[in-house]
């Protein structure tokens, strides 16, 4: 077990090094680093000073060492546009993205679970077939366009909900959150629904499959034989058991949701990390791009590592494979 963990950790470390090398090469080798890292407004003298200060006259491997050394201290450069440390800029935007991601998780359970439950209990019903057909749409519809249509319908035509921004925020734990105010909640609703479309379909399918499988189990038959009400069987016995895979898969989706919020945030002008990276790419604010990519790569490596470790704890087969 310890050996497996050690090997898995080494793998993660290797991936992190490989990705940092890729990002480094992307910035330093593909484009001209002077143009990328030094503000275009600088004059010749300033430029040379900056080249020396940034160590751009050193051989490439030394530059990489410097880049890694500074990255380890949490220094990934300063944004040209905001003139703030890139890391700090991203951390400031992170709560907005997290809020959106968790909001969409919540909505996908709120909508997906009852629909999946119904489709699982009455698989042949007309409504169930409609639900399943709808869930295919959730997988294949281009989400940014659905977002635009949501804005068109609910913000422009009906005028029920605001179309862009975070609205009023309230302070909690030193950060500002939208979900604590009524105005903020109205602002988060549309983007969260948009971001949850894919996950709603996912939850519907998982729940339906889980319900159909669980209904055939002996303990459900026994519960029925005991004369329990169908309500109790569904919501106590079946429900508990299908929640495990649903929660697991949703947890795995968290990383993807944060990554995909790039699209939703752009559609709804939601001031999170995703909007920041798109804006930074458009104005070539490379330190922010590098910092965002490194942060998100690190996040994915940690998520994958945690998932693998949890699986190892739950499934002895993974452990034994590591030993052989």
């Amino acid at each position, binding site marked *: 077990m310890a050996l497996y963990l050690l090997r898995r950790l080494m793998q993660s470390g290797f991936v992190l090094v490989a990705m940092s090398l890729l990002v480094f090469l*992307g*910035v330093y080798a593909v484009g001209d680093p002077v143009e990328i890292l030094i503000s275009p407004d600088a004059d010749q003298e300033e430029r040379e000073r900056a080249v020396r200060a940034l160590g751009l006259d050193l051989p490439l491997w030394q530059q990489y060492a410097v880049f890694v050394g500074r990255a380890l201290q949490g220094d990934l450069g300063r944004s040209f546009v905001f003139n703030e440390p890139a890391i700090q800029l991203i951390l400031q935007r992170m709560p907005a993205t997290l809020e959106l991601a968790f909001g969409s998780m919540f909505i996908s359970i709120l909508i997906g679970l009852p629909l999946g439950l119904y489709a699982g209990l009455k698989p042949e019903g007309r409504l169930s077939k409609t639900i399943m057909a709808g869930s295919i749409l959730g997988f294949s519809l*281009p989400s940014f*366009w659905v977002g*635009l249509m949501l804005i068109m319908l609910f913000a*422009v035509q009906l005028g029920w909900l605001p179309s862009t921004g975070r609205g009023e925020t309230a302070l909690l734990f030193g950060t500002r959150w939208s979900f604590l105010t009524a105005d903020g909640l109205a602002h988060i609703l549309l983007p969260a629904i948009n971001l949850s479309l894919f996950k709603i379909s996912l939850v519907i399918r998982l729940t339906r499959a889980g319900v159909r499988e669980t209904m055939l189990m002996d303990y459900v038959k026994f519960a029925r034989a005991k004369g329990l009400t169908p309500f109790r069987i569904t919501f106590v016995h079946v429900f508990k058991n299908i929640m495990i895979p649903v929660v697991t898969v949703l947890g795995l989706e968290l990383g993807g949701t944060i990554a995909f919020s790039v699209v939703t945030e752009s559609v709804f002008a939601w001031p999170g990390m995703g909007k920041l990276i798109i804006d930074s*790419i458009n104005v070539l604010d490379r330190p922010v791009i590098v910092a965002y990519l490194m942060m998100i790569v690190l996040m994915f490596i940690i998520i*994958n590592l945690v998932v693998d470790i949890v699986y190892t704890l739950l499934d002895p087969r993974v452990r034994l494979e590591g030993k052989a």
Partner: protein
Amino acid sequence: MSATTAPRVETPFQRFVSEFFASKLAVLGLVVFTIIVLVALLAPLIAPQDPYDLAVLDIMDGRLEPGSVGGSGITHWLGTDDQGRDMLSGIMYGLRISLVVGVGSAVIAAAVGATLGLLAAYVGGKTDTLIMRLVDLQLSFPAILAALMILAFLGKGIFNVVFAIVVVEWAYYARTVRGNALVERQREYIEAARCLALPPRRILFGHLLPNCLPPLIVVGTMQIARAIALEATLSFLGLGVPITEPSLGLLISNGYEYMLSGKYWISFYPGIALLITIVSINLVGDQLRDVLNPRLKK
């Protein structure tokens, strides 16, 4: 029944065709997709207007509602955009770019992925481990993120978008082909080919690959739809195709700012075209998966 009628023998291909056409939805998908491809191919002949000939554009026709008649006497069935461009023509031309990027990147990704998948299965050992580790790594990052990363460094452009999509998608093909090739490798015909001392290249591409085609075709069909959607998303974000070659995604993006003032058609209709394209491909792909799946065969 006269004695002269010989019993009809169905070839595998005929059986495949008749099984495919058993689903009305799949046939609908195929018909719609064929129409879309024809419209894209024939766009210069059938479009009411050449949307990129600046001489025929009249800025006074800008943002006309669907169905209104412009200054040049053309009826704009789907309205016009801010430049006075006929949306219907814009969509027909945009389809060309979307299809070229989608199909092109799917085909290249299939070639790269299938080659690596075959190599992994046939050579095995360290090569297999290395390729499959790369596949795992690729699949553990969301497609949108990997594509974003590549385009952030390379910048816009059709080739860069195709490259990004290939990098994102090759792993699906590699995994599918490897799984299938591992089974096929054990078969007698591969052993026979080896005994004949055929060069590995011929065994891989002449014998192994044709027998791995069915799952490759299924994955390929689905990946075309995914590639078209991904390209549209990237173009919407301003990272995809350049403004001179507007795909459907870029058309939708252009209409974004006008939508808030109620001019819905600039974004709405290109989106519908995108939607119909993706859904029709998926309908075909779904049926192909059912027909070509050996597990469902008796």
